[in-house]
């Protein structure tokens, strides 16, 4: 990173920046500035995250005691279905790419904006338009589970039709963002920013955009077929007229496994950005992480069958998918080793982003290793559709993607708002969140081993109901702490955004290109497009005698 751009004095942070150069709702709603669109995405997603979270609390409170605790079966089915639909389609799938990706991508590659700013605004409008359909699905009492498995999803036609329309429109917004990011990364990198100098968050966003563009249209056609099935009865998924529900599951999971990588890859990108900054060491194995990211994006299309091991697929295909699923674990393992190796011999500063990043590594290891229980055929026959699976994917999505999003929000907070949040308060909220999260989902692993099936409103007819009730009670109590932790973090960030102490342009003196502009950045990101001469992880290069390509340094290092 050439040092001459660091001479930016802070004269810019006081006056005109992207937050205050225009005022009023229309200036935000009609804005084509990628930073404003990223912020609008962030606000609407936090809103949906809150709704999803409340629904989760309703589900947990119902399961606290045996029998009917607060709501009857129908409302419980609606609650867990809408919890799934809102959390996945409205919060975590647009999740990191739409908020931090939108905000940081042009900054990190030295561009003034994404390739098609108006397409970016259109994708936000399409996202908002899609969320109206989601509210429509709530009105029509959608209770089919977020997977819409037929033939049950053919029973409540209006609800499933509005939910599929919501998912279709939100998928369209996801495709538009994906296309926008791919063209931006291909065409608008700063001069000198070659593919092997690209920051790892940009690589992660690239792999995510690839997945968004390849996988989302397939859920589009699947939901369209389901929509037409409900509307005109085309018989494709109705078994009694010759259709095949397993075909729906195949097409659905062909998208829905790559989508879990759309959720987790950006979070991994964020962690790969944070750990080097706070251990003042270059990322370990940059090329390995790049290949791991793109490799996961490729392998993710081969393994969708492990969601359907007991669904009536043929035996040979079950063996094949189990074999392929094991290879998905390898790139993730490589990444985890690289992160830990990055910390080795560094100078570690325990700020809240670093705590979140290290928590991500720990939680994602639990998520990854429990995935192996579900990939092995013999144990999956027992674990499929039990609370073991619920705990596994909550560790992956909540422990992985959401903790990654929170890590990113904390790390780039000064850049987004130009202010700092209260660090001590952030650490307290982190501890609360960490305890609450683990307390909620570790008992669910045990519930899953004991055979508690998923999506059960009531477990009073089981033989060992007392142990189930005891575990559910623990999980529910910790889920309150978990919810408290999440809301405290948001309160802290919200307060910091408005009243926090003013932040300098580069508080953690990181070498990333996005930190070289004043924070919050001006409307046009950079006055003159910076020229990139080296990769952005050169921490501690001044102490060593060779640069990252391994060749000896020619110029004598200044004393």
């Amino acid at each position, binding site marked *: 990173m050439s040092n001459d751009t660091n001479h930016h004095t802070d004269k810019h942070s006081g006056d005109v920046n992207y937050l205050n150069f225009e005022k009023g709702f229309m200036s935000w709603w009609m804005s084509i500035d990628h930073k404003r669109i990223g912020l609008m995405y962030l606000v609407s997603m936090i809103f949906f995250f809150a709704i999803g979270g409340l629904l989760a609390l309703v589900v947990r409170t119902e399961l606290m005691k045996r029998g009917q605790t607060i709501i009857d*079966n129908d409302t419980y089915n609606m609650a867990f279905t809408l919890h799934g639909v809102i959390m996945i389609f409205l919060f975590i799938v647009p999740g990191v790419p739409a908020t931090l990706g939108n905000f940081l991508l042009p900054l990190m590659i030295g561009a003034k904006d994404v390739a098609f700013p108006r397409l970016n605004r259109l994708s936000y409008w399409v996202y908002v338009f899609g969320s109206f359909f989601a509210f429509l699905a709530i009105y029509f009492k959608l209770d089919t*589970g977020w997977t819409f498995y037929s*033939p*049950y999803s053919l*029973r409540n036609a209006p609800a499933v039709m509005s939910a599929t329309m919501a998912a279709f429109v939100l998928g369209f917004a996801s495709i538009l963002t994906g296309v926008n990011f791919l063209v931006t990364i291909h065409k608008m990198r700063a001069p000198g920013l070659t593919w092997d100098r690209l920051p790892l968050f940009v690589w992660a966003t690239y792999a995510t955009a690839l997945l968004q563009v390849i996988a989302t249209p397939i859920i589009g056609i699947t939901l369209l077929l389901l929509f037409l099935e409900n509307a005109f009865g085309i018989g494709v998924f109705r*078994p009694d007229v*010759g259709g095949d529900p397993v075909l729906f599951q195949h097409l659905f999971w062909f998208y829905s496994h790559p989508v879990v990588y759309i959720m987790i890859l950006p979070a991994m990108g964020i962690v790969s950005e944070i750990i080097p900054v706070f*251990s003042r*060491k*270059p990322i370990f*194995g*940059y090329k390995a992480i790049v290949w791991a990211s793109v490799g996961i994006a490729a392998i993710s299309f081969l393994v969708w069958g492990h969601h359907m091991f*007991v669904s*009536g697929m043929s035996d040979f295909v079950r*063996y094949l998918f*189990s*074999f392929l699923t*094991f*290879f998905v*674990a*390898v790139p993730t*393992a*490589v990444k985890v080793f*690289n*992160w830990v190796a990055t*910390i080795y*011999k*560094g*100078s*570690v500063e325990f700020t809240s982003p670093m705590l979140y990043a290290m928590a991500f*590594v*720990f939680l994602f*290891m*639990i998520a990854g*290793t*429990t995935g*192996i229980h579900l*990939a*092995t*055929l*013999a*144990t*999956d*026959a*027992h674990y*499929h*559709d039990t609370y073991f699976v619920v705990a596994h994917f909550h560790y992956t999505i909540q422990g992985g993607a959401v903790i990654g999003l929170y890590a990113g929000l904390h790390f780039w907070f000064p850049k987004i708002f130009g202010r700092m949040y209260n660090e001590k308060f952030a650490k307290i909220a982190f501890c609360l969140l960490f305890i609450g999260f683990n307390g909620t989902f570790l008992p669910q692993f045990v519930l899953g*081993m004991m*055979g508690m*099936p998923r*999506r*059960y*409103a009531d477990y009073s*007819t089981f033989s060992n109901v007392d142990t189930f009730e005891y575990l559910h009670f623990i999980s529910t109590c910790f889920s309150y702490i978990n919810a408290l932790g999440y809301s405290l973090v948001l309160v802290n960030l919200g307060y910091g955004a408005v009243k926090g102490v003013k932040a300098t342009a580069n508080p953690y003196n990181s070498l990333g290109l996005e930190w070289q502009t004043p924070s919050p950045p001006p409307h046009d990101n950079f006055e003159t497009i910076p020229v990139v001469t080296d990769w952005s992880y050169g921490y*501690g*290069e001044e*102490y060593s005698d*060779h640069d*990252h390509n*391994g060749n000896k340094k020619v110029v004598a290092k200044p004393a």
Partner: protein
Amino acid sequence: MLDWILEIFDFMPVEASSWASRVDYINNVITVISVFCTVAITFVMILFAWKYRRKSENQKTAYITHNATLETIWTIIPTIICFVLFYFGYTVYHEMRNPPVGANEVFVKGQTWYWDFQYANGKKSTGELVVPVGEPVKLIMTSADVLHSFFIPAMRVKEDMYNGNYSYLWFTPTSSGTFDIFCTEYCGTQHSGMTAKLKVVSKEAYNDWLNEKKDPSAEPVLPEVTGKAIYTAKCAACHSLDGSKVVGPSFKGIYSGAKHVLQDGTEVVVDDNYIRNSIANPLSQIVAGYPPVMPAFQLSEDELIGVISYMKTLK
């Protein structure tokens, strides 16, 4: 020491089928590897983080960017572990998916919110699967409407079923007793009520039970008793006895002559053919304020008489 720990953390249900111990063994192998890796890596991470915590502002950090040998090692080892674990899983699962030829067949039909079983000699039973201990049994399963999944935690088996297709699973019960059967594929309102009992009994008891229907000489069973059995198996999931609304109206005091308003506004007093009609085709006589979700049941004549006489006993 390892066994002692595994003993504490053994949450798996009782091992009641021939392969349950092997499945648990594989599960323990994976769990041990996972816990070891997680704890080791987390410990190393925290060790590094603490050992190299920031002491001075521009503390000297090592400029390591990659190490080819280390990286290849930690790519190959997870791949090898993957191969081994896959092979473990494959061998046991291969056995799970190939039933022996002579296994006695039982037909399972999953319908919204209860299980129907039919044995080779035509004997039917609802909500209760009786199998002899030690002999392999093959379940040939289909569903009458939506997706269901037949799950016996103690036997470590699970298989989905859908209308118009037969799926199968088999197991050899090794220890007798009563085990839970769950439906694990979401199927609607009473998905959590769709449970059944698996009774593993000795060979003789199984044969007696199987041929129970065949000998007419047994003294006639009171109709209320068969009615009660049918109620617990098929109706309890949606109709309570204590007046509370589960899905359908409660049976408490159903024959008390009270007037009921139907959905289409007509008033009706509960009598024999009202019950008979609402069992045969329920959607024509749904009581106002209740969802029209009751499926039709094909009950034989004596079962109907049984249900009606049982309802008459309800106060």
